[in-house]
């Protein structure tokens, strides 16, 4: 480690270094994801600079026990999964409960098809999803987005920020791609013209 020089030479490099350390501090106390906008306001620098510094930091943390994750529209300083055993032992935490298969499948449909009604989800899964949806609502992984202007005005569901955090996603565009033609578009669009023949 180098010793700090007594007199700091002014210059863009040094300023950037200073900024980088400041961002590091804010990420630490922020706990969860901190958005570039929040950093911009806190540090009083252009958001482009914030992005550059964040990219530097992400790279610098590559060999550390900690990492900087792009998550739910922000960046969070967090541990690496390889060390979860020690973290859990220290915090006396149990294994985090994974979602059941039914919950995961239902959540996948909500994620890719949102806004989506219960009937539309059930049409895909072929089974009733009432309870699964309730549990997902309880865990704040999905939320009520309003009502569909259709017969019976059914509730429309969509995913939450908690969903992005649960799966470590930057945003919904970071969802794993679906195979085949993308049913992320409107529900029930017939897979007509460019369906099977263009694939394969």
């Amino acid at each position, binding site marked *: 480690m180098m010793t700090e020089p007594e007199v700091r030479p002014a210059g863009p490099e040094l300023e950037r270094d200073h900024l980088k350390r400041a961002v590091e501090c804010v990420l*630490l*106390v*922020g*706990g*969860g994801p901190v958005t570039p906008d929040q950093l911009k306001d806190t540090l009083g620098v252009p958001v482009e600079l914030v992005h550059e510094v964040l990219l530097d930091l992400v790279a610098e943390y590559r060999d550390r026990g900690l*990492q900087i*994750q792009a998550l739910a529209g922000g960046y*969070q*300083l*967090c*541990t*690496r*999964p*390889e060390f*979860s055993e020690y*973290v859990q032992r220290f*915090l006396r935490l149990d*294994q*985090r409960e*994974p*979602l059941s*298969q039914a919950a*995961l*499948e239902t*959540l*996948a*449909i909500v*994620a*890719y098809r949102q806004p989506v009604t219960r009937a539309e989800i059930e*049409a*895909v*899964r*072929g089974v009733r999803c009432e309870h699964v949806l309730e549990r997902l609502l309880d865990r*704040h992984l999905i*939320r009520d987005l309003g009502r569909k202007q259709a017969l019976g005005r059914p509730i429309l569901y969509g995913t*939450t*920020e*908690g969903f992005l*955090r*649960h*799966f*470590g*996603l930057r945003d919904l565009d970071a*969802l*794993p791609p*679906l*195979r*085949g033609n993308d*049913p992320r578009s409107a529900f029930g669009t*017939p*897979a*007509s013209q460019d*369906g099977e023949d263009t694939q394969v």
Partner: protein
Amino acid sequence: MAGYTVRLPQFEGSLDLLLSLAQQGQVDLREIPLGQIAEEYLAASRAHFDLDEATEVLWALAAMIEMKSRLLVPKPEVIEEPLIVDGEPSDLQERLEEQAQEYRTFKEVSLALRALEDYQKKVFARPKEGDSGEVILEGVTIDDLFRSFQQVLERAREHVGEVAAEEIKVADRMDAILSLLGVSPQGVEFPNLFSPAAGLLEVIVTFLALLELIKQRRVSAQQPKPFATIRLVLVPA
């Protein structure tokens, strides 16, 4: 079981047989007066009632009523799906296949999501200052809070009852259990912890006291086999 016998001009035999013939399409239910069968069974069951038989009959009749109602309801005109142009073998089959395909797609992507979950559940961020670690307001909107607050206000307006002072204390019951077990080296069976004269409150408080003692590891509960009487023994200090 022979089953209830039906005697109609159109059919004579057991109800079971009628049901299976109807299911195989060998009997046209539209010609079978199910209401008459039901009425005749009801009349017969007044003279002789057998619960098993009644259950069978009820089930068989219900199944046939459903089948018959399907036969009677006019079928909607089958609307040709626009995507089936050149006479596919069966559009139902096609739709089922499509639905299955769609479901498989989501099943596959849920594997990818599972992998992401596996990763993320091992990642820990620093809890915020003064945060118990649980983000309890996640996904809660101001509207939700306002609505909940209104409900609390509503409840507050309701009659507030008086809470009577606790006459039986958990601590007292704990002492009582300990002294009872102290004089019973063989232990005491669970029901004998409660005096026959004990009121509801005493029973509840005694049970809470027992749970507390077990939690403190001062009393152990033993059950030699499932459903056997539980025996409580003092844990040697």
